[in-house]
């Protein structure tokens, strides 16, 4: 197809197969879940509906407070995930910049950015934020 005549921009056309696949997969998942809802047995009892705790009576609620470590890991993850998002465009274009003799300045900029985050990692490390068993 001539890109100029295409109804959708040619780059977006690449996403149509993704939607087709999404349809297939969601269809498969929902169909299977419904199938087992319809075909499966339906005998309920109090013991069956209770939470599994190795045969004992369930003790208390499972809506408990969590260790602070999980939050800390999540926050650190967001920090470094955002860093990696900023690194993606640089990584994809580093070679092209080098070809235009711009490699060193672009690298210096991104290295400064990564260095600041590296200092952040060192700080968290020093403060014991990465010690799980503290």
């Amino acid at each position, binding site marked *: 197809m001539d890109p100029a005549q295409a109804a959708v921009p040619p780059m977006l056309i690449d996403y149509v197969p993704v939607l087709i696949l999404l349809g297939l997969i969601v269809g498969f998942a929902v169909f299977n879940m419904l199938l087992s809802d319809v075909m499966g047995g339906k005998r309920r009892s109090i013991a*069956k509906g209770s939470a599994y705790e190795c045969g004992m009576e369930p003790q208390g609620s499972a809506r408990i407070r969590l260790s602070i470590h999980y939050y800390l890991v999540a926050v650190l993850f967001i920090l470094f995930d955002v860093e990696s998002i900023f690194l993606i465009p640089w990584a994809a274009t580093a070679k092209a910049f080098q070809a235009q003799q711009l490699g060193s300045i672009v690298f210096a900029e991104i290295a400064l950015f*990564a260095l600041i985050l590296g200092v952040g*990692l060192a700080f968290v490390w020093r403060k014991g934020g990465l010690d799980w068993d503290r």
Partner: protein
Amino acid sequence: MNPLLRDILVWLVKAGVVYGGLLGVAAGMTLAERKVSAWMQYRHGPNRVGPWGLLQPIADGVKFIFKESLTPDGANRWLFRFAPAIAAVPAMMTVAVIPFGPAVPLPDSWGVPAAFTNLSVTDLDIGLMYLLAIGGLSIYGVILGGWASNSKFSLLGGLRASAQMISYELTLILTILAVVALSGSLSLRGVVEAQPDFWEWNVFHQPLAFVLFSIAAFAETNRHPFDFAECEPELVSGFHTEYSSMRFALFALGEYCAMVVMASLWTTLFLGGYKVPFWENAPWFVCVAAFCAKTSLFLFLYLWVRWTLPRFRFDQLMHLGWKVFLPLALVNLFLTGAAVSYGVDLW
């Protein structure tokens, strides 16, 4: 027939074949898991259904359908019922960008001129970003399923799984970025085309990234020796303790699909993807066979490691991820970036 109709037909066929293949390989992995485990322990493994137990996955599927899909009384009904789909769908969606073969000629028929189609569901130019973005979504299914079950084992399993997956995702992204910097492309096909012959495979250019990626892949897919999400002696079966029937099967299927995709990604990034060593311009079916062989290698590694290494402790896992892998991956990316940016050929 007009060209657009032909395009749509090709898309449908490719999506169907790839998804069918993914499910087939995932089902095969459930059998291989038990078979290889059995062989490594000097047993037979499943051998009753079909020759050598080959029909076991089908028997399992039928059995899953006829089992009761139980929702515990204390569970959050809707979250509990949808969590398996939320976990499985993104894991399966990631297969869309995996290139498993080169361009294949389409026949000149029905008045449409001959053309080529690339062997992959689609070739996004930001393929790796798509893969990371969509693949990361399956954490929601895991943590929602664990929380919605209202069971302590599920909750702890879900928490552990999510903490582990996000920690190792960083290592995974940074090692992938080193490969991207070297290839100058975010498209997976671009990465494959950047390693045309054997000595240009990224495993030789990025040995550190290769090792880090291989190990992080185990943690990312919750596989032994990092299977804390469902480590049997502690958490029964982790976040899917309360699940039964097809909902349990979807969680398992999602995990196996994630393993298959991770193995394909490993092949694509480091082992030249569908390239055949020492045979340039190999016919497309040889390329597809080479891709499958390389991917099977990593899939076998999953099983091999499972019966070789003891399980880690959770704090060791987090230490390894944050204090060893993350700094190493950063340093590796820094050195690779410097080499690329200053035009130094490391090889």
